[in-house]
């Protein structure tokens, strides 16, 4: 089983050592160690319930964990959750939602418009209540929320889970653009191994029986994939593309 070095090299944007997460007496993550380099596009893969989202929540400090996470000193984290459980009658427009963050960070209100423009969210959409947005629009809204405050690392939980194929492609292109233009470090959780091999520089597998990290082509051998997802053959995991 391969593990990336846990020594804190200067190129590492962050390093996780011996992370343990226990929720209500159940060990979700055990002895997880890896590091991600600055500017990396890193994919986190693993079967359902393996603890991928839990890993993200531990990384952003939302849940307690054992072991250590060392971030680069200048790290500004943006996080895009898979979904936010919204009340259907919540009186909050997309613009209100984005302004919540810009105001907490003491940014001018133009910060919201800048991000909206970058993600091609038009003015009309900003005025709509959050609860009336489609899944795809809401996800774009959550990306916009994450990008306010100019983060240099983006943690993205299943970027394309709620999107159709063109929407999915657009999100990945946007992420790639962010990575290139802003030297952003990106971590994303995905089930789509085709996309992972296409876009990711590093792949991190999370599972109870196996933990690996490395470049996708070398790491994702048929044996590893087989062990990670059970007996499903590689092609069947994502017949979508």
């Amino acid at each position: 089983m391969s593990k990336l070095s846990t020594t804190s090299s200067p190129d590492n944007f962050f390093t996780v050592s011996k992370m343990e997460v226990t929720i209500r007496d159940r060990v979700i993550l055990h002895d997880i160690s890896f590091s991600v380099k600055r500017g990396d596009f890193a994919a986190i893969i693993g079967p359902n319930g393996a603890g991928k989202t839990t890993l993200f929540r531990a990384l952003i400090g939302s849940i307690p964990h054992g072991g250590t996470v060392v971030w680069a000193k200048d790290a500004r984290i943006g996080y895009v959750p898979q979904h936010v459980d919204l009340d259907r009658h919540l009186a909050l427009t997309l613009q209100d939602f984005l302004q919540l963050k810009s105001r907490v960070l003491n940014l001018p209100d133009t910060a919201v418009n800048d991000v909206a423009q970058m993600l091609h969210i038009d003015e009309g959409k900003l005025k709509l209540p959050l609860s009336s947005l489609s899944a795809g629009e809401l996800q774009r809204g959550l990306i916009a929320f994450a990008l306010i405050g100019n983060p240099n690392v983006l943690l993205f939980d299943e970027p394309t889970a709620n999107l159709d194929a063109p929407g999915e492609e657009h999100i990945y292109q946007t992420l790639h653009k962010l990575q290139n233009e802003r030297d952003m470090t990106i971590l994303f959780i995905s089930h789509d191994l085709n996309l992972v091999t296409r876009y990711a520089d590093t792949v991190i597998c999370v599972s109870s029986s196996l933990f690996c990290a490395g470049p996708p082509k070398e790491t994702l051998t048929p044996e590893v994939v087989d062990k990670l997802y059970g007996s499903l053959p590689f092609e069947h995991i994502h017949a979508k593309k």
Partner: protein
Amino acid sequence: MNTLEFFSLVAMLVVAAASGLVGAFALMRRMTLAADAMSHVALPGLGAAMLIGINPLIGGAIALFLGAVLVWRLELKTKIATETIVGVVFSTSLAVGALLSPDHELLELLFGGETLFTWGEAIVGMVTGLVIIGLILSLKERFAISFLSADLAAVTGIRREFLEFLFLMFFVITVLLGLNFLGVLLMGSLIIVPAATAKNVAKSFKGDLFASALISSLSVLVGWLIANRFAFEIGPSIIAVAAVFFFVSLLFRD
């Protein structure tokens, strides 16, 4: 109307505005039922304080504070606990409180009825109400993010646990301020009903907060006028007016 009557009314209106704001965030935090019933916890405190002969509000404050800490601690551990606390602890506290409270005081403790405050009560009501309004407005973005998503709060650098605690304290203090005119049963309603009404009509965050505070104060004003005109009890009049606003607002709901 003499000066003290006037300032008693002003104090009620300020407390109502604070209560509207607390209610708007209580709904955002999805504690509709808990918020309405949490005020019941005050009763055993009020009753016990009367039994031992100290200011009832001190007993009410202690009981409410303990109730809030209970919600805060248990919610941090598990999400489903709130409903259990409401069903068991808060409702039982009404029974225990009723046993402890002197018979001739019970009705007023439950439903309020004071329309003429002492100068002390009026000043404390106005000043504390204004301070709570100011603090909630200055923390509104932080509260909203915390109540929408714990993860988004964590990554925005918000100390959610502390904010949750602060919010429950604002809640407790607001309930205490309303006890003399609304009682333990109806104060919870003044927090929740106008906020629910505002949610039906508001289209934006600011609009929701403004509408909630305004509808709450209007309910008190109209309830006060009706109670004076027809010699009704003030507490039930206010909540009946708030309920009428709510049912009318259903017509505007999308």
